[in-house]
């Protein structure tokens, strides 16, 4: 396993994402973010909508809108990414760093089969032939818990249930066995029972493949279940970072406490 003293897989230093505003005044979606992620670790980023957590993920992938200005330092496996060439970023995306989106219904192309959307990742990044890619896709579909993979591979997204679609998204992201998986609210659009299954799947995949996961969500319950460490974001700033048990037991920042309180109230209410 990883030497705990080894350099982190992903290191953000003072990363900012700035958008020019209407009046010429710029606003920060992400402000001076400092984050570390070690190999095989699951880091949760908690925050309400509008806290900038999605833009943080986009910045790591190099997928921020053209109008955004990025500053700071973003190092992945020793390579600076914020100012890397587009070609290099494309080589990494889907390959060494993968992204899973919130709503699998809209995130998958309704006009292409599941199989096509998955094999193309292997074909493009691994140079596999269609037939070889298909074999690996079938294996992946099975390992994420899709029943009857040989049937599903020829189906279209609308023919699968929500939970299955999210499993497909996960499988698609992990095809090249990336070092880092970024997940943007992966369970929010799913039923509660399916949520638990997907989270267990994430844990299992981390155990099997050693993939580090950066999981962004507003749902602290999700993070309580899977995260090793949590970073709390408020209005673009990371206000607190701690081990998961420490954070839940003794939150330092008032915003963190507020989040925990409201989560507990919700929990109590539904109990």
């Amino acid at each position, binding site marked *: 396993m990883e030497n705990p003293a080894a350099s982190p897989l992903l290191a953000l230093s003072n990363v900012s994402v700035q958008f020019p505003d209407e009046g010429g005044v710029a606003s920060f979606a992400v402000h001076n973010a400092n984050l570390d992620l070690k190999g095989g670790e699951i880091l949760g980023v908690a925050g309400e909508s509008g806290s900038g957590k999605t833009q943080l993920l986009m910045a790591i*992938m190099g*997928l921020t809108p053209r109008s955004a200005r990025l500053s700071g330092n973003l190092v992945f496996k020793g390579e600076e990414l914020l100012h890397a060439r587009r070609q290099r*970023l*494309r*080589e*990494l*995306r*889907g*390959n060494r760093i*993968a*992204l899973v*989106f919130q*709503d699998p219904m*809209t*995130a*998958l*192309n*309704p*006009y*292409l089969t599941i199989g*096509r959307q998955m094999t*193309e*990742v292997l074909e*493009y*990044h691994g140079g596999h032939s269609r037939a070889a890619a298909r074999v690996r896709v079938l294996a992946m579909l099975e390992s994420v818990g899709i029943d009857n993979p040989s049937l599903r591979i020829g189906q*279209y997204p*609308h*023919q699968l249930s929500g939970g299955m679609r999210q499993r497909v*998204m996960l499988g*698609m992201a992990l095809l090249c066995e990336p070092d880092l998986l970024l997940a943007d609210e992966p369970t929010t659009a799913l039923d509660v029972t399916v949520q638990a299954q997907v989270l267990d799947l994430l844990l299992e995949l981390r155990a099997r493949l050693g993939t580090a996961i950066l999981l962004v969500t507003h749902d602290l319950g999700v993070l309580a279940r899977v995260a090793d460490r949590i970073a709390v974001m408020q209005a673009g700033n990371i206000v607190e970072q701690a081990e998961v048990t420490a954070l839940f037991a003794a939150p330092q920042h008032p915003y963190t406490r507020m989040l925990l309180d409201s989560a507990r109230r919700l929990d109590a209410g539904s109990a």
Partner: protein
Amino acid sequence: MLRYVLRRLVAAVPTMLVIITLAFALLHAAPGGPFDEGKEMIPEIKASIEKTYHLDEAVPLQYLRYLAQIARGDLGPSFQYRNTSVNELIAQGLPIDLTIGGLALLVALLVGLPLGVLAATQRGRWLDHLSMGISLLGISVPVLVIAPLLILVFAVTLQWLPAGDWGDGNPRNLVLPVLALSAPYIAYVARITRGSLVEVLQAPYIRTARAKGLPAHIILLRHAMKPTLLPLVSFLGPASIGVITGSIVIESVFGLPGIGRFFVNGAFNRDYTLVMGVTILYGGLIVLANLLADLCYAWLDPRVRLS
């Protein structure tokens, strides 16, 4: 999918019925029409008309007869050309119309699609503004202006291309008519493609494709093309109406012996059966085009095809 097809076929029937009924109603109700009582006519001709059109029977019965006749595909005899039936005249002219109309749509797609894609990918830059400006011109300038002007420029002044005259079947005769007919459609196709592609490129699944690290050309061709083309397919249905109207003008200007020419001549010479018959034909063609466009759309969208 099968149910969808059947449903659309059934929906086409009332439209055709309306067209045929309107045709019948106008034929019989109009003053100065062939069935106008007040008209002075030689007794023999009058008797012959009455026999052919069963005018002694009650009007509803005549209507049913007319329906049956149309259902058989018989559009009746031409009033102008006594010994020719409308069907024969149509058979003469239809190939020309189909050729020119089909080629015009093809040209519209071949030129308009790349133009629209270019404009969308170069959104906001000068190429975008230029292509959309040109297409606005194409839409605003009517066929009736473009056609003669094209002849003036290319046939008369530059003497590059012949100005019509179908006689020798030379394909060069087709160039100007097809160009004139396709002009507004190139513009429409370009605009629709641009709008559609711009919208598609904002879709979440395109973001996923980018997140997978796929290069721009694969995203464009494999992920974006199909959804971009769908509004275009829908457009082809209504476009057929315009193509038909345009072909009437084109044939007049270029002197092509298509159905449009017969139609206009028939209008001048009060050849009622011909005019009615061609109108019904046009209606039928439009209904068919709409049907085909809808079916194409349904087939291209897997959510419809597989339900």
